[in-house]
Protein backbone atom coordinates (compact mmCIF):
# COMPACT_ATOMS: atom_id res chain seq x y z
CA UNK A 1 0.00 0.00 0.00
CA UNK A 2 1.37 3.38 -0.96
CA UNK A 3 0.87 6.82 0.57
CA UNK A 4 -1.77 7.85 -1.98
CA UNK A 5 -4.70 5.93 -0.43
CA UNK A 6 -3.97 7.54 2.95
CA UNK A 7 -4.27 11.00 1.43
CA UNK A 8 -7.40 9.91 -0.42
CA UNK A 9 -8.82 8.54 2.82
CA UNK A 10 -8.62 11.97 4.46
CA UNK A 11 -10.29 13.49 1.43
CA UNK A 12 -13.09 10.92 1.26
CA UNK A 13 -13.82 11.24 4.99
CA UNK A 14 -13.85 15.02 4.81
CA UNK A 15 -16.41 14.85 2.00
CA UNK A 16 -18.46 12.23 3.85
CA UNK A 17 -18.71 14.52 6.87
CA UNK A 18 -20.48 16.99 4.58
CA UNK A 19 -22.71 14.18 3.28
CA UNK A 20 -20.91 13.96 -0.06
CA UNK A 21 -18.99 11.41 -2.13
CA UNK A 22 -16.17 11.90 -4.64
CA UNK A 23 -18.43 11.33 -7.62
CA UNK A 24 -21.31 13.40 -6.25
CA UNK A 25 -23.61 10.53 -5.30
CA UNK A 26 -25.71 10.02 -2.15
CA UNK A 27 -24.46 7.40 0.31
CA UNK A 28 -27.10 4.85 -0.73
CA UNK A 29 -27.13 5.45 -4.48
CA UNK A 30 -25.59 3.25 -7.13
CA UNK A 31 -23.63 4.49 -10.09
CA UNK A 32 -25.29 4.09 -13.46
CA UNK A 33 -25.88 0.41 -14.23
CA UNK A 34 -25.90 -0.79 -17.81
CA UNK A 35 -26.54 -4.38 -18.86
CA UNK A 36 -26.06 -5.62 -22.39
CA UNK A 37 -26.93 -9.24 -23.16
CA UNK A 38 -25.95 -11.63 -25.98
CA UNK A 39 -22.63 -9.93 -26.57
CA UNK A 40 -20.63 -13.09 -27.36
CA UNK A 41 -21.92 -15.26 -30.21
CA UNK A 42 -19.86 -18.33 -29.35
CA UNK A 43 -21.23 -18.46 -25.79
CA UNK A 44 -24.56 -20.06 -24.88
CA UNK A 45 -25.38 -16.91 -22.95
CA UNK A 46 -23.47 -13.73 -22.20
CA UNK A 47 -23.77 -10.31 -20.63
CA UNK A 48 -21.64 -7.23 -20.22
CA UNK A 49 -22.39 -5.24 -17.08
CA UNK A 50 -21.17 -1.74 -16.37
CA UNK A 51 -21.52 -0.19 -12.94
CA UNK A 52 -20.03 3.25 -13.40
CA UNK A 53 -16.57 2.59 -14.82
CA UNK A 54 -16.44 -1.01 -13.62
CA UNK A 55 -16.94 -3.38 -16.49
CA UNK A 56 -17.48 -7.14 -16.26
CA UNK A 57 -18.20 -9.68 -18.97
CA UNK A 58 -19.73 -13.04 -18.19
CA UNK A 59 -20.08 -15.90 -20.65
CA UNK A 60 -21.87 -19.21 -20.17
CA UNK A 61 -20.67 -22.37 -21.87
CA UNK A 62 -22.49 -25.67 -21.61
CA UNK A 63 -21.46 -29.24 -22.20
CA UNK A 64 -22.41 -32.80 -21.35
CA UNK A 65 -20.62 -34.73 -18.63
CA UNK A 66 -20.96 -37.07 -15.70
CA UNK A 67 -22.92 -36.04 -12.59
CA UNK A 68 -21.40 -36.24 -9.11
CA UNK A 69 -22.01 -39.71 -7.60
CA UNK A 70 -24.03 -38.28 -4.68
CA UNK A 71 -26.34 -36.25 -6.96
CA UNK A 72 -26.88 -38.51 -10.00
CA UNK A 73 -29.86 -36.55 -11.33
CA UNK A 74 -28.67 -32.96 -11.08
CA UNK A 75 -26.69 -30.91 -13.56
CA UNK A 76 -23.27 -29.58 -12.63
CA UNK A 77 -22.30 -25.91 -12.50
CA UNK A 78 -18.93 -24.32 -11.93
CA UNK A 79 -17.84 -20.71 -11.70
CA UNK A 80 -14.47 -19.16 -12.46
CA UNK A 81 -13.37 -15.54 -12.39
CA UNK A 82 -10.39 -14.15 -14.28
CA UNK A 83 -8.81 -10.94 -13.08
CA UNK A 84 -7.13 -10.29 -16.40
CA UNK A 85 -4.25 -7.77 -16.27
CA UNK A 86 -6.32 -5.59 -18.58
CA UNK A 87 -8.63 -4.52 -15.78
CA UNK A 88 -6.18 -2.85 -13.44
CA UNK A 89 -2.47 -2.01 -13.27
CA UNK A 90 -2.32 -4.15 -10.12
CA UNK A 91 -3.66 -7.35 -11.67
CA UNK A 92 -1.02 -9.81 -12.83
CA UNK A 93 -1.28 -12.77 -15.13
CA UNK A 94 -0.94 -16.25 -13.73
CA UNK A 95 -3.15 -18.61 -11.74
CA UNK A 96 -6.13 -16.99 -9.97
CA UNK A 97 -5.19 -15.38 -6.67
CA UNK A 98 -7.28 -15.42 -3.53
CA UNK A 99 -9.37 -12.37 -4.44
CA UNK A 100 -10.38 -13.94 -7.77
CA UNK A 101 -11.23 -17.18 -6.00
CA UNK A 102 -13.28 -15.40 -3.32
CA UNK A 103 -15.21 -13.54 -6.02
CA UNK A 104 -15.89 -16.70 -8.02
CA UNK A 105 -17.04 -18.52 -4.89
CA UNK A 106 -19.35 -15.73 -3.75
CA UNK A 107 -20.96 -15.57 -7.20
CA UNK A 108 -21.15 -19.37 -7.31
CA UNK A 109 -22.85 -19.49 -3.90
CA UNK A 110 -25.32 -16.79 -4.89
CA UNK A 111 -26.38 -18.83 -7.91
CA UNK A 112 -26.11 -22.31 -6.39
CA UNK A 113 -27.63 -21.88 -2.92
CA UNK A 114 -30.59 -19.85 -4.11
CA UNK A 115 -31.17 -22.57 -6.73
CA UNK A 116 -31.55 -20.01 -9.47
CA UNK A 117 -30.61 -22.61 -12.07
CA UNK A 118 -32.93 -25.58 -11.73
CA UNK A 119 -30.10 -28.08 -11.91
CA UNK A 120 -32.41 -31.02 -11.28
CA UNK A 121 -33.91 -30.29 -14.69
CA UNK A 122 -30.55 -30.63 -16.41
CA UNK A 123 -30.29 -34.38 -16.15
CA UNK A 124 -30.19 -36.41 -19.37
CA UNK A 125 -29.62 -40.01 -18.15
CA UNK A 126 -29.49 -40.39 -14.35
CA UNK A 127 -26.05 -41.31 -13.08
CA UNK A 128 -24.50 -41.06 -16.53
CA UNK A 129 -25.10 -37.86 -18.43
CA UNK A 130 -26.06 -34.41 -17.24
CA UNK A 131 -25.64 -30.89 -18.56
CA UNK A 132 -22.62 -28.96 -17.34
CA UNK A 133 -22.93 -25.20 -16.90
CA UNK A 134 -19.71 -23.17 -16.88
CA UNK A 135 -19.95 -19.59 -15.66
CA UNK A 136 -16.83 -17.65 -16.64
CA UNK A 137 -16.41 -14.11 -15.42
CA UNK A 138 -13.96 -11.78 -17.12
CA UNK A 139 -13.12 -8.56 -15.29
CA UNK A 140 -12.45 -5.97 -18.00
CA UNK A 141 -12.21 -2.68 -16.10
CA UNK A 142 -11.90 -2.44 -12.33
CA UNK A 143 -13.36 0.60 -10.59
CA UNK A 144 -14.69 -1.05 -7.43
CA UNK A 145 -17.64 -3.23 -6.45
CA UNK A 146 -16.76 -6.32 -8.44
CA UNK A 147 -19.08 -8.44 -6.29
CA UNK A 148 -22.25 -6.77 -7.52
CA UNK A 149 -21.05 -6.37 -11.10
CA UNK A 150 -19.91 -9.99 -11.36
CA UNK A 151 -23.04 -11.51 -9.85
CA UNK A 152 -25.28 -9.29 -11.94
CA UNK A 153 -23.36 -10.26 -15.10
CA UNK A 154 -23.65 -13.94 -14.19
CA UNK A 155 -27.42 -13.63 -13.68
CA UNK A 156 -28.02 -11.70 -16.88
CA UNK A 157 -25.90 -14.18 -18.83
CA UNK A 158 -27.69 -17.19 -17.30
CA UNK A 159 -31.10 -15.67 -17.96
CA UNK A 160 -30.27 -15.40 -21.66
CA UNK A 161 -28.65 -18.84 -21.92
CA UNK A 162 -30.00 -21.36 -24.40
CA UNK A 163 -29.25 -25.02 -23.69
CA UNK A 164 -27.42 -26.08 -26.91
CA UNK A 165 -29.34 -29.30 -27.49
CA UNK A 166 -28.95 -29.27 -31.28
CA UNK A 167 -25.15 -29.02 -31.11
CA UNK A 168 -24.75 -31.89 -28.65
CA UNK A 169 -27.32 -34.25 -30.12
CA UNK A 170 -24.61 -36.22 -31.89
CA UNK A 171 -23.07 -37.06 -28.49
CA UNK A 172 -26.26 -38.76 -27.34
CA UNK A 173 -27.22 -42.36 -28.12
CA UNK A 174 -30.77 -43.62 -28.57
CA UNK A 175 -31.21 -44.37 -24.87
CA UNK A 176 -29.96 -40.93 -23.84
CA UNK A 177 -32.36 -39.28 -26.27
CA UNK A 178 -35.34 -41.24 -24.99
CA UNK A 179 -34.41 -40.52 -21.40
CA UNK A 180 -33.92 -36.86 -22.21
CA UNK A 181 -37.23 -36.62 -24.07
CA UNK A 182 -39.00 -38.16 -21.09
CA UNK A 183 -37.33 -35.85 -18.61
CA UNK A 184 -37.98 -32.83 -20.78
CA UNK A 185 -41.70 -33.56 -20.85
CA UNK A 186 -41.57 -33.87 -17.09
CA UNK A 187 -39.71 -30.58 -16.93
CA UNK A 188 -42.60 -28.75 -18.49
CA UNK A 189 -45.36 -30.46 -16.53
CA UNK A 190 -43.94 -29.91 -13.06
CA UNK A 191 -46.74 -28.33 -10.98
CA UNK A 192 -46.29 -24.61 -10.56
CA UNK A 193 -44.15 -24.21 -13.67
CA UNK A 194 -46.27 -21.19 -14.55
CA UNK A 195 -44.75 -19.45 -11.59
CA UNK A 196 -41.35 -19.61 -13.22
CA UNK A 197 -40.84 -16.00 -14.11
CA UNK A 198 -38.13 -16.35 -16.68
CA UNK A 199 -37.64 -18.28 -19.86
CA UNK A 200 -39.89 -21.25 -20.35
CA UNK A 201 -41.48 -21.99 -23.65
CA UNK A 202 -44.13 -24.58 -22.95
CA UNK A 203 -44.89 -25.10 -26.61
CA UNK A 204 -41.29 -26.08 -27.29
CA UNK A 205 -41.11 -29.64 -26.00
CA UNK A 206 -38.91 -30.90 -28.77
CA UNK A 207 -35.60 -32.11 -27.32
CA UNK A 208 -33.80 -31.34 -30.58
CA UNK A 209 -34.29 -27.63 -30.27
CA UNK A 210 -32.32 -25.37 -28.00
CA UNK A 211 -34.36 -24.10 -25.09
CA UNK A 212 -33.84 -21.52 -22.35
CA UNK A 213 -31.98 -22.62 -19.23
CA UNK A 214 -34.62 -23.40 -16.58
CA UNK A 215 -34.33 -20.63 -14.00
CA UNK A 216 -36.30 -19.14 -11.13
CA UNK A 217 -36.42 -15.46 -10.22
CA UNK A 218 -32.93 -14.69 -8.92
CA UNK A 219 -31.86 -12.78 -5.82
CA UNK A 220 -29.86 -9.63 -6.48
CA UNK A 221 -26.84 -8.69 -4.38
CA UNK A 222 -25.94 -5.22 -3.12
CA UNK A 223 -22.66 -4.24 -1.51
CA UNK A 224 -21.85 -1.48 0.94
CA UNK A 225 -18.63 -0.52 2.71
CA UNK A 226 -18.00 1.29 5.99
CA UNK A 227 -15.41 4.04 6.20
CA UNK A 228 -15.18 5.44 9.76
CA UNK A 229 -18.89 5.56 10.62
CA UNK A 230 -20.16 6.18 7.13
CA UNK A 231 -21.94 3.48 5.18
CA UNK A 232 -21.44 3.87 1.43
CA UNK A 233 -23.23 1.69 -1.13
CA UNK A 234 -21.65 0.59 -4.39
CA UNK A 235 -18.10 1.69 -3.50
CA UNK A 236 -15.90 2.93 -6.34
CA UNK A 237 -12.23 1.88 -6.45
CA UNK A 238 -10.94 4.76 -4.30
CA UNK A 239 -13.56 4.08 -1.63
CA UNK A 240 -13.08 0.34 -1.74
CA UNK A 241 -9.31 0.35 -1.14
CA UNK A 242 -9.62 2.46 2.01
CA UNK A 243 -12.76 0.77 3.37
CA UNK A 244 -12.69 -0.75 6.86
CA UNK A 245 -15.31 -3.39 6.23
CA UNK A 246 -17.64 -4.56 3.49
CA UNK A 247 -21.01 -6.30 3.47
CA UNK A 248 -22.81 -7.89 0.53
CA UNK A 249 -26.51 -8.70 0.95
CA UNK A 250 -28.55 -10.61 -1.64
CA UNK A 251 -32.29 -10.06 -1.51
CA UNK A 252 -35.08 -11.66 -3.52
CA UNK A 253 -38.27 -10.29 -5.08
CA UNK A 254 -40.25 -11.02 -1.91
CA UNK A 255 -37.99 -8.71 0.06
CA UNK A 256 -36.31 -11.60 1.88
CA UNK A 257 -32.61 -12.04 2.48
CA UNK A 258 -30.96 -14.87 0.54
CA UNK A 259 -27.21 -14.53 1.07
CA UNK A 260 -24.68 -12.38 2.90
CA UNK A 261 -20.91 -12.03 2.94
CA UNK A 262 -18.87 -9.79 5.19
CA UNK A 263 -15.39 -8.92 4.02
CA UNK A 264 -12.28 -7.05 5.23
CA UNK A 265 -10.98 -6.69 8.77
CA UNK A 266 -13.35 -4.05 10.23
CA UNK A 267 -16.59 -4.66 12.10
CA UNK A 268 -20.28 -3.70 11.98
CA UNK A 269 -22.81 -3.03 14.73
CA UNK A 270 -26.30 -4.52 14.63
CA UNK A 271 -27.82 -1.18 13.59
CA UNK A 272 -25.31 -0.78 10.79
CA UNK A 273 -26.11 -4.23 9.42
CA UNK A 274 -29.82 -3.36 9.45
CA UNK A 275 -29.04 -0.17 7.59
CA UNK A 276 -27.15 -2.11 4.91
CA UNK A 277 -30.00 -4.62 4.57
CA UNK A 278 -32.55 -1.80 4.13
CA UNK A 279 -30.40 -0.18 1.47
CA UNK A 280 -29.89 -3.54 -0.24
CA UNK A 281 -33.65 -4.08 -0.38
CA UNK A 282 -34.27 -0.67 -1.96
CA UNK A 283 -31.42 -0.89 -4.44
CA UNK A 284 -32.26 -4.54 -5.16
CA UNK A 285 -35.70 -3.50 -6.41
CA UNK A 286 -34.18 -1.04 -8.85
CA UNK A 287 -31.49 -3.44 -10.04
CA UNK A 288 -34.08 -6.16 -10.54
CA UNK A 289 -35.98 -3.79 -12.87
CA UNK A 290 -32.83 -3.07 -14.88
CA UNK A 291 -32.09 -6.81 -15.07
CA UNK A 292 -35.59 -7.70 -16.25
CA UNK A 293 -35.48 -4.93 -18.80
CA UNK A 294 -32.10 -6.05 -20.16
CA UNK A 295 -33.33 -9.57 -20.90
CA UNK A 296 -36.40 -8.24 -22.61
CA UNK A 297 -39.04 -8.96 -19.96
Amino acid sequence: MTIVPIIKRDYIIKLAEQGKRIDGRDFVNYRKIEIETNVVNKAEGSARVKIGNTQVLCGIKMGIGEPFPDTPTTGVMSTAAEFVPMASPDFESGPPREDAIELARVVDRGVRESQVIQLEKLCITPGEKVWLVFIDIHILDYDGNLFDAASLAALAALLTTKVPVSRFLKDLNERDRDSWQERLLELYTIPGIDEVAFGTDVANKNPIEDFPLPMIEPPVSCTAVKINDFILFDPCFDEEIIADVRLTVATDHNGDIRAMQKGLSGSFSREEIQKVIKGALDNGQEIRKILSHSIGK
Partner: protein
Amino acid sequence: MKSDIKLINNEGKRNDGRGPKDIRKIKIEAGVLHRADGSCYLEWGGNKILVAVYGPREAVPRHTQNPLKANVQARYNMAAFSVEDRKRPGPDRRSVEISKVISEALEKIVLTEQFPRASIDVCIEVLDAEAGTRCAGLTAAGVALIDAGIPMRDIPVACAAGKINGQVVLDLGKEEDNFGDADLPIAISPRTGEVLLLQMDGHLTYDEFNEAFDLAVQGCHKISEIQKKAIMDKYQNAAAEVNE
Protein backbone atom coordinates in the same frame (compact mmCIF):
# COMPACT_ATOMS: atom_id res chain seq x y z
CA MET B 1 -6.04 -29.89 -44.90
CA LYS B 2 -7.32 -30.17 -48.43
CA SER B 3 -10.96 -31.09 -48.70
CA ASP B 4 -13.82 -31.19 -51.12
CA ILE B 5 -15.96 -28.71 -49.24
CA LYS B 6 -17.07 -25.98 -51.60
CA LEU B 7 -15.88 -22.65 -50.18
CA ILE B 8 -16.13 -20.49 -53.27
CA ASN B 9 -18.56 -20.81 -56.18
CA ASN B 10 -17.94 -20.48 -59.91
CA GLU B 11 -18.87 -16.79 -59.91
CA GLY B 12 -16.14 -16.17 -57.32
CA LYS B 13 -18.59 -15.64 -54.44
CA ARG B 14 -17.52 -17.07 -51.07
CA ASN B 15 -19.95 -18.79 -48.69
CA ASP B 16 -20.53 -15.61 -46.68
CA GLY B 17 -21.21 -13.65 -49.86
CA ARG B 18 -17.81 -11.96 -50.10
CA GLY B 19 -15.73 -11.70 -53.26
CA PRO B 20 -12.13 -13.03 -53.20
CA LYS B 21 -10.67 -9.64 -52.33
CA ASP B 22 -13.20 -8.50 -49.72
CA ILE B 23 -12.45 -8.26 -46.01
CA ARG B 24 -15.06 -8.96 -43.35
CA LYS B 25 -16.77 -6.02 -41.68
CA ILE B 26 -14.52 -4.21 -39.23
CA LYS B 27 -15.49 -1.85 -36.42
CA ILE B 28 -12.87 -0.17 -34.24
CA GLU B 29 -13.37 2.00 -31.18
CA ALA B 30 -10.52 3.61 -29.22
CA GLY B 31 -10.45 4.48 -25.51
CA VAL B 32 -13.15 2.17 -24.16
CA LEU B 33 -11.64 1.33 -20.76
CA HIS B 34 -11.29 3.55 -17.71
CA ARG B 35 -8.32 2.11 -15.82
CA ALA B 36 -6.05 1.26 -18.74
CA ASP B 37 -3.62 3.85 -20.14
CA GLY B 38 -4.92 3.07 -23.60
CA SER B 39 -7.52 0.70 -24.98
CA CYS B 40 -9.30 -0.42 -28.09
CA TYR B 41 -12.35 -2.54 -28.88
CA LEU B 42 -12.42 -4.20 -32.27
CA GLU B 43 -15.01 -6.29 -34.08
CA TRP B 44 -13.83 -8.08 -37.21
CA GLY B 45 -16.44 -10.40 -38.67
CA GLY B 46 -17.37 -12.61 -35.73
CA ASN B 47 -14.24 -11.71 -33.76
CA LYS B 48 -14.58 -9.45 -30.75
CA ILE B 49 -11.28 -8.27 -29.29
CA LEU B 50 -10.51 -5.93 -26.41
CA VAL B 51 -7.00 -4.58 -25.92
CA ALA B 52 -5.61 -2.61 -22.98
CA VAL B 53 -2.17 -0.98 -22.80
CA TYR B 54 -0.35 -0.18 -19.56
CA GLY B 55 2.90 1.72 -19.47
CA PRO B 56 5.58 2.64 -19.95
CA ARG B 57 6.01 1.53 -16.33
CA GLU B 58 8.81 -0.06 -14.31
CA ALA B 59 9.47 -3.57 -15.52
CA VAL B 60 9.03 -6.21 -12.81
CA PRO B 61 10.64 -8.51 -11.78
CA ARG B 62 13.74 -6.35 -12.00
CA HIS B 63 15.97 -8.85 -13.76
CA THR B 64 13.75 -8.47 -16.84
CA GLN B 65 14.71 -4.80 -17.16
CA ASN B 66 16.78 -3.84 -20.16
CA PRO B 67 19.06 -0.85 -19.42
CA LEU B 68 18.94 0.21 -23.07
CA LYS B 69 15.28 -0.09 -24.01
CA ALA B 70 11.76 -0.93 -22.94
CA ASN B 71 10.26 -4.41 -23.09
CA VAL B 72 7.07 -4.74 -25.07
CA GLN B 73 5.04 -7.51 -23.54
CA ALA B 74 1.90 -8.62 -25.26
CA ARG B 75 -0.37 -11.17 -23.61
CA TYR B 76 -2.85 -12.85 -25.92
CA ASN B 77 -5.60 -14.55 -23.95
CA MET B 78 -8.81 -16.22 -25.06
CA ALA B 79 -11.87 -16.06 -22.85
CA ALA B 80 -13.19 -19.46 -21.81
CA PHE B 81 -16.47 -18.72 -23.59
CA SER B 82 -14.99 -17.35 -26.84
CA VAL B 83 -14.90 -20.68 -28.66
CA GLU B 84 -17.32 -23.52 -29.50
CA ASP B 85 -16.15 -25.90 -26.74
CA ARG B 86 -15.18 -24.16 -23.51
CA LYS B 87 -11.46 -23.40 -23.32
CA ARG B 88 -9.74 -23.91 -19.99
CA PRO B 89 -8.77 -20.48 -18.64
CA GLY B 90 -5.09 -19.53 -18.64
CA PRO B 91 -2.28 -19.68 -21.18
CA ASP B 92 -1.76 -22.71 -23.40
CA ARG B 93 1.02 -23.36 -25.94
CA ARG B 94 -0.90 -21.67 -28.74
CA SER B 95 -1.55 -18.44 -26.85
CA VAL B 96 2.04 -18.30 -25.58
CA GLU B 97 3.32 -18.51 -29.14
CA ILE B 98 0.91 -15.87 -30.42
CA SER B 99 1.83 -13.59 -27.50
CA LYS B 100 5.49 -13.97 -28.46
CA VAL B 101 5.13 -13.19 -32.17
CA ILE B 102 2.86 -10.20 -31.45
CA SER B 103 5.28 -8.87 -28.80
CA GLU B 104 8.13 -9.10 -31.31
CA ALA B 105 6.10 -7.36 -34.01
CA LEU B 106 5.23 -4.49 -31.67
CA GLU B 107 8.77 -4.20 -30.32
CA LYS B 108 10.00 -3.27 -33.78
CA ILE B 109 7.50 -0.42 -34.14
CA VAL B 110 7.54 1.11 -30.64
CA LEU B 111 10.33 3.60 -29.88
CA THR B 112 11.57 1.35 -27.07
CA GLU B 113 14.92 3.15 -26.76
CA GLN B 114 13.08 6.10 -25.20
CA PHE B 115 12.10 4.10 -22.12
CA PRO B 116 15.03 2.09 -20.75
CA ARG B 117 14.16 -0.33 -17.90
CA ALA B 118 10.45 0.10 -18.59
CA SER B 119 7.79 -2.31 -19.66
CA ILE B 120 4.93 -1.63 -22.04
CA ASP B 121 2.21 -4.19 -21.43
CA VAL B 122 -0.38 -5.02 -24.05
CA CYS B 123 -3.27 -7.20 -22.90
CA ILE B 124 -5.17 -8.74 -25.78
CA GLU B 125 -8.41 -10.42 -24.74
CA VAL B 126 -10.29 -12.45 -27.31
CA LEU B 127 -13.92 -12.33 -26.21
CA ASP B 128 -15.45 -13.97 -29.27
CA ALA B 129 -13.39 -15.90 -31.81
CA GLU B 130 -14.00 -16.61 -35.49
CA ALA B 131 -10.74 -17.08 -37.41
CA GLY B 132 -8.00 -14.47 -37.66
CA THR B 133 -7.80 -13.51 -33.99
CA ARG B 134 -4.05 -12.84 -34.06
CA CYS B 135 -4.45 -10.32 -36.90
CA ALA B 136 -7.42 -8.74 -35.15
CA GLY B 137 -5.50 -8.63 -31.86
CA LEU B 138 -2.45 -7.00 -33.37
CA THR B 139 -4.55 -4.47 -35.30
CA ALA B 140 -6.41 -3.55 -32.11
CA ALA B 141 -3.12 -3.38 -30.19
CA GLY B 142 -1.88 -0.76 -32.68
CA VAL B 143 -4.85 1.49 -31.91
CA ALA B 144 -4.60 0.90 -28.15
CA LEU B 145 -0.89 1.85 -28.18
CA ILE B 146 -1.75 5.11 -29.93
CA ASP B 147 -4.54 5.70 -27.41
CA ALA B 148 -1.99 5.20 -24.61
CA GLY B 149 0.26 7.83 -26.20
CA ILE B 150 3.15 5.41 -26.76
CA PRO B 151 5.56 6.86 -29.35
CA MET B 152 5.72 4.60 -32.41
CA ARG B 153 7.26 4.70 -35.87
CA ASP B 154 3.93 3.76 -37.43
CA ILE B 155 0.61 2.12 -36.56
CA PRO B 156 1.05 -1.62 -37.05
CA VAL B 157 -1.71 -3.42 -38.88
CA ALA B 158 -2.34 -7.07 -39.71
CA CYS B 159 -4.40 -9.06 -42.15
CA ALA B 160 -4.37 -12.60 -43.51
CA ALA B 161 -4.67 -13.97 -47.00
CA GLY B 162 -5.09 -17.61 -47.89
CA LYS B 163 -6.07 -20.18 -50.44
CA ILE B 164 -9.46 -21.88 -50.68
CA ASN B 165 -10.40 -24.40 -53.36
CA GLY B 166 -7.19 -23.47 -55.16
CA GLN B 167 -7.92 -19.75 -55.28
CA VAL B 168 -6.09 -17.01 -53.40
CA VAL B 169 -8.44 -14.92 -51.24
CA LEU B 170 -8.22 -12.22 -48.59
CA ASP B 171 -9.13 -12.55 -44.88
CA LEU B 172 -10.18 -16.15 -44.25
CA GLY B 173 -13.41 -16.80 -42.37
CA LYS B 174 -14.04 -19.69 -39.96
CA GLU B 175 -14.88 -22.38 -42.52
CA GLU B 176 -12.22 -21.18 -44.90
CA ASP B 177 -9.60 -21.38 -42.15
CA ASN B 178 -10.68 -24.91 -41.15
CA PHE B 179 -11.13 -26.39 -44.61
CA GLY B 180 -8.98 -24.14 -46.81
CA ASP B 181 -5.60 -24.96 -48.36
CA ALA B 182 -3.41 -22.26 -46.83
CA ASP B 183 -3.39 -19.35 -44.38
CA LEU B 184 -0.88 -16.48 -44.44
CA PRO B 185 -1.27 -13.90 -41.67
CA ILE B 186 1.04 -10.90 -41.95
CA ALA B 187 1.51 -7.62 -40.11
CA ILE B 188 3.15 -4.61 -41.70
CA SER B 189 4.16 -1.07 -41.02
CA PRO B 190 1.92 0.54 -43.65
CA ARG B 191 4.13 3.59 -44.12
CA THR B 192 7.26 1.66 -45.06
CA GLY B 193 5.83 -1.74 -46.00
CA GLU B 194 8.17 -3.50 -43.54
CA VAL B 195 6.86 -6.91 -42.51
CA LEU B 196 6.50 -7.26 -38.73
CA LEU B 197 4.80 -10.63 -38.48
CA LEU B 198 4.61 -13.46 -40.93
CA GLN B 199 3.35 -16.97 -40.49
CA MET B 200 2.03 -19.51 -42.93
CA ASP B 201 0.51 -22.91 -42.86
CA GLY B 202 -0.80 -25.06 -45.67
CA HIS B 203 0.47 -25.28 -49.21
CA LEU B 204 1.29 -22.44 -51.64
CA THR B 205 3.35 -22.31 -54.81
CA TYR B 206 5.91 -19.52 -55.19
CA ASP B 207 3.52 -17.57 -57.45
CA GLU B 208 0.58 -18.14 -55.14
CA PHE B 209 2.65 -16.90 -52.21
CA ASN B 210 3.44 -13.69 -54.07
CA GLU B 211 -0.20 -13.20 -54.97
CA ALA B 212 -1.38 -13.92 -51.41
CA PHE B 213 1.29 -11.67 -49.92
CA ASP B 214 0.35 -8.74 -52.16
CA LEU B 215 -3.31 -9.28 -51.41
CA ALA B 216 -2.67 -9.33 -47.64
CA VAL B 217 -0.67 -6.10 -47.91
CA GLN B 218 -3.56 -4.48 -49.76
CA GLY B 219 -5.88 -5.68 -46.99
CA CYS B 220 -3.56 -4.17 -44.38
CA HIS B 221 -3.70 -0.79 -46.11
CA LYS B 222 -7.51 -0.84 -46.14
CA ILE B 223 -7.61 -1.72 -42.45
CA SER B 224 -5.01 0.92 -41.68
CA GLU B 225 -7.50 3.55 -42.86
CA ILE B 226 -10.16 2.18 -40.47
CA GLN B 227 -7.61 2.31 -37.63
CA LYS B 228 -6.79 5.95 -38.35
CA LYS B 229 -10.45 6.86 -38.54
CA ALA B 230 -11.09 5.26 -35.12
CA ILE B 231 -8.30 7.33 -33.60
CA MET B 232 -9.50 10.52 -35.30
CA ASP B 233 -13.06 9.84 -34.10
CA LYS B 234 -11.94 9.53 -30.51
CA TYR B 235 -10.18 12.90 -30.50
CA GLN B 236 -12.94 14.58 -32.48
CA ASN B 237 -15.48 13.38 -29.92
CA ALA B 238 -13.23 14.55 -27.12
CA ALA B 239 -12.95 17.96 -28.77
CA ALA B 240 -16.73 18.13 -29.18
CA GLU B 241 -17.22 17.34 -25.50
CA VAL B 242 -14.85 20.09 -24.47
CA ASN B 243 -16.67 22.61 -26.66
CA GLU B 244 -20.03 21.77 -25.15
